[in-house]
């Protein structure tokens, strides 16, 4: 289980856990970062670009929430 920010470009995995302030976490989950969702890092950095459910999202970690990833190939 590693933080999303540690993913390198092209690496993918599945959301293992989203930690942090409950309503921020809730919003992230609504946008598709629920446990088990397949994520691919497109452009690392802050903010980063991730691919989620075939869509691209610009994303910067909140001070209040951290997304943890199960590394591994995740064919969507």
């Amino acid at each position: 289980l590693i933080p999303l920010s540690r993913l390198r470009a092209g690496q993918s995995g599945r959301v293992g856990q989203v930690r942090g302030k409950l309503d921020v976490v809730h919003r992230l989950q609504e946008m598709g970062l629920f446990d088990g969702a397949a994520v691919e890092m497109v452009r690392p950095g802050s903010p980063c670009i991730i691919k989620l459910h075939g869509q691209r999202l610009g994303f910067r970690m909140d001070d209040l929430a951290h997304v943890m990833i199960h590394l591994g190939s995740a064919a969507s």
Partner: protein
Amino acid sequence: MSLATEHAAYTIALIGNPNTGKSTLFGALSGVRQRTGNYPGVTVERKLGELTHAGRRITLVDLPGTYSLSARSPDEMIAVDVLLGRRPDVPPPDVVLCVVSADSLERHLYLVSQVLELGRPVVVALTMTDLAQGRGMEIDPEQLSRRLGVPVVEVQARRGLGLERLKDALVTAANQPPPSPPTLFPEVFQAEVEELRGWIEAATTGDRNGASGETRTGPARFPRYLAERLILDVGGSLERGIAISGGARQTLTERLAAARNRLADAGCPIPAIEAANRYQWAAKVLEGVVSGRGEPASSWGDRIDAILTHKIWGTILLALILTVMFNAVFAWAQIPMDAIESAFDALSGALVAALPEGALRSLLVDGVLAGCSAILVFLPQIFILFFFLTCLEESGYLARAAYLMDRWMIHVGLSGRSFIPLLSSFACAIPGIMATRVIENRNDRLTTILIAPLMSCSARLPVYTLMIAAFIPPRTYLGGWLNLQGLTLLAMYLLGILVAAAMALLLKRTRLRGSRPGFLMELPVYRWPPLRVVVHRMFDRGWDFVQNAGTIIFAVSIVMWGLLYYPRLGPEELAPLVAEKQRLEQALMQEADDPSTPAEELAASLELVSNRIEGLQKRQSFLGRMGRWIEPAVRPLGWDWRIGSAVIAAFPAREIVVSTIGVIFDVGSDVEEGEGQSRLTEALQAARWPDTGRPLFGVPVALSIMVFFALCAQCASTLAVIGRETESVAWPVFTFVYMTTLAYLAALVTYQAASWLAA
């Protein structure tokens, strides 16, 4: 409401994620002019449309694009209230039309699952199937319809495909009972929801019978969906919005906490179970509905993104795009603007020739025509600005710009989300301020609202244009790609941005302190901006300007003419000058017969006398008196009473300053003159200080006026919108005071520094 009218008219609410083509569909269904977009947050206002189908009158309510009906942001709150029929200004919808896009169906079903729970008839419109097919995905709408238990209609709004079938489905659905809501959550959760609902109904019976007891189904039940949301939304914004008495509120908070604890113990952590269960449901619904996925998104889009979102190249390109855009606004608009001005010159020339001198001629030429010209002359610039903005928005680029800007915005304590409202504010602060509703964090939103009016809106453009055209030399660099006038314009925009950044930093460090906001934003698929939408929006915005700003400008032009024309001086005060004028006129008449005396000399002194009469008149006018009264205060900025008067006149709306300057400096100048070049520009270049005879304007004064207008808060509409959005009087007052103070100080420094440099 009688049964007969109820059957004659339907209300249909449109809901959908951003970037689903919902706004385009709304436009295609109702034919009503409205702003469409493909980045999050463009449809923040409630929009209504009308259409008739199968003899039924249908009212369409376009709800803000939203990812979820969770009632946390103001946009979502409005959507939930409209859908549940809890808003007094919108009738309860007979059908909810939920728009989903084929290329991200799984995520959009999240919202569908919430809509299905509302207990109203639902029709699903499936858009962008062509896009999904291009990516090798096939979707079976019939199968999806069976799984969801509601009609699913495939539409391509841009080409008008499927619209009739959609209307049929809507009318049919309106006459049928709502579908039974899907079972999404475990038994234990449902039980908690029902228990809470029962308790709230008991607690609010007293209030309910009085206020909203007369709904169609008799005594209204508290919506089950709201009870569910109360438990799920741990932030508590809905909880605060529920109308119950103080004592009951305390109990409600305790009950919610207890319910959440019980659920957590039962293996249903709140709020995590919501996303988990809804996405689980969505995955099950889509089994066998979608086939052949796995093909990556369009690879040319990936390649474009590789450059456009690059930290260095992307940022350089963004800066380049914005520079070209603002240069174009200035350069391309010049020819049509000149044409409009000379047309008005010709018209007023004809009027002067046709009418006798007096109040009526003056009103028509200096009030009415000057007012009309002041409005129409800005249309070319507004068209060009919106042409660019709409293209960027429709192509999907603006979201990338927001992504790129996030790393900069974070330095002033804001997120990339604030970028789009701020960029919209370059057109007009009002839609910009309304677009801040997508910012969830209250302090971030407030900060963005307070700095949005510092972005140079299109109403400032006229001031910049006039001053630049008159006083900044048209030097060019790099083979004509850059010119000094365009760069000066860019500098004014940058000034607003820099001051806004400083203000944001200040606000976030003091009054609106908060944690660093997160950033999560959809980057929609690149598409060619449809020309029809772009042209439509261009004219729409232009018409908007003529209608809203234009009427104010026109009315104020007339009022300002009056304030400048009256009171007229008595004959005894003007007697010596009038006598002199008559003597010169007679001499000029005889001149035709007698070529010995020089005609030019006579004509020149005649003009001098005429202008002195006009000058005396204007000094004595109401506006002139006001201007002279504040002259000591504006003198350090390099302004005389005439500029001061124009600034006073522009307090309700800053664009008025140009027409007022026009009236003040134009009256008395010969309208036949100035071929090819703007009459007003010449008048300003010719203006002198009465005491010293030095030119009134110069680069320092022009700069100080521009800087003042770049920073001042002279727009009554913006202040009103700030009041409405912040629900306070203090914030608009604060905005006005801080901006006016800054504007004055900055103009002072600019003038003093520029004069010192010039000397």
